[in-house]
């Protein structure tokens, strides 16, 4: 703040500075947003009678969490859950293995331009398509079952992990990599001793995070026939068996929490 501004301000009451400085822009944003909200509320049709009727069922579902039924459908739950876990493990392994070379290729400071463009293209396609849409297409092509789910999750892992790995490589310290190169290392040795040690902690952390996401996603792939716990869950909802559904949801939450705890421990160790 220079002296001129200070003179203007002196003697006046302090006012909280606005978040958006320009008043015209602020009011346009505010009014536009308000107009949008009104339009949105006018076009949403809510059947309040139906909602009111549903409150009882909602309450029944909340109550079901206090008495989840693990036993009566245990064999279905177990086979679905096991399939989800198997899909998660296999897809994470394959996805991570493929995303490392693609991540190397998508880093501008390592890869030549043609390779860079191709790898960035793969990443962009994989990130733009959602898991569930990929799963629908793959189920149509490969048939029902965990193979489609496995391929979907691997494909989604590539987009996620390659992009973040490439960003990490682009942000690495050049000096260390150059020192290895100056010692006469071949390309593989350069990557192995100059680049890999710098990005390894981040790669391990991201991989753990992705395993966590893959498990969560594997829970919905069953809705479109791509294997996993989703099909069992959908059936439970369709039959209004809220206690079984609650049991499945509790199991998913439990596994996700365990994975998050495990990834926290592993990340703390590698960093």
């Amino acid at each position, binding site marked *: 703040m220079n002296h001129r501004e200070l003179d203007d301000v002196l003697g006046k009451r302090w006012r909280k500075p606005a978040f958006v400085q320009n008043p015209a822009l602020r009011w346009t944003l505010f009014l536009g947003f308000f107009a949008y909200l009104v339009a949105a509320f006018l076009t949403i049709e809510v059947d309040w009678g139906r909602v009111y009727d549903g409150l009882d069922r909602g309450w029944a579902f909340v109550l079901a969490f206090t008495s989840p039924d693990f036993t009566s459908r245990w064999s279905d739950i177990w086979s679905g859950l096991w399939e989800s876990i198997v899909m998660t*493990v296999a897809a994470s392994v394959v996805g991570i293995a493929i995303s490392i070379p693609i991540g190397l290729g998508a880093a501008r400071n390592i890869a030549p331009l043609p390779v860079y463009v191709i790898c960035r293209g793969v990443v962009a396609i994989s990130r733009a398509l959602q898991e569930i849409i990929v799963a629908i297409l793959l189920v149509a092509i490969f048939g029902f079952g965990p193979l489609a789910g496995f391929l979907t999750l691997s494909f989604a892992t590539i987009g996620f992990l390659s992009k973040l790995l490439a960003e990490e490589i682009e942000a690495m310290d050049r000096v260390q990599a150059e020192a290895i190169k100056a010692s006469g290392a071949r390309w593989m040795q350069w990557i192995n001793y100059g680049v890999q040690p710098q990005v390894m902690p981040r790669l391990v952390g991201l991989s753990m995070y992705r395993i966590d996401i893959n498990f969560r996603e594997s829970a919905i792939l069953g809705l479109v026939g791509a294997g996993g716990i989703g099909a069992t869950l959908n059936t439970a909802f369709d039959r209004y068996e809220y206690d079984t559904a609650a049991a499945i949801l509790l199991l998913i939450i439990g596994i996700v929490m365990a994975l998050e705890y495990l990834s926290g421990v592993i990340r703390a160790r590698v960093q």
Partner: protein
Amino acid sequence: MPVLERDGAQIWRRRTGRESLIRWFGWLLGVAVFVYCWQIISASTTWFFVWDAPRIADDIWTRATPPRWDYITQLGRPIWDTLNIATLGTLIALCLAVPVAFLAARNTTPSALFIRPIALLIIVSTRSINSLIWALLLIAIIGPGVFAGVIAIAIRSIGFCAKLLYEAIEEIDHTQVEAITATGASRWQVMAYGIVPQILPAFAGIAVFRWDINIRESTVLGLVGAGGIGLQLSASLNVLAWPQVSLILLVILAAVVISEWVSAKVRSAII
């Protein structure tokens, strides 16, 4: 530094013999687990369909191209619904996430022993369940439609927003809070003038980031009947109208790209 003695000369090694042995067994175990998982997937796959896949994919491709462009006139309303689901869902989620985040942050929670674990439980449980599953559940409770989609997106986003927000609250500069407290401000005044201005940029960033993710998720919510463009997608898939499916996929792709562009622009303007 691990070295190897050979013919009286010392050769540098990256790891000691014991370390490399442990690593080797680790890899062996990992490969064994992967092979086991792959066998399970392979056992529940109909391989005939897989060998037939290139022909099927080619068949679908010829059916799906060119997209049925004139169908786009019927997509206006679903796109508007999708936008509403994402935006209103994000707004509701933010309103609910703010108190949860303040209760979960170590430096603002009223009671670290009782209230913080409850807030963390809300965060974990809403985060670990996909919005499609929330939508399934809400459709069973309050009936299909846009409203169920809005609520599903809102519940799913609470955990995500609250987690990022409470991490931002925990990282605030404590000296500013102390300065406000030293002026004799009440608890709420400290909140409004000491904490809120520090987390406002993070809050805006989180809001836009989540809105971008929610646009993606709301495009597929219709698959389970929760309104938006996914309803058209699932209807077209059910009658195998592939030209319509390819058009809808293109529209979804465009929506995802635009929302990502908007969110990147807004975030770079804020930060």
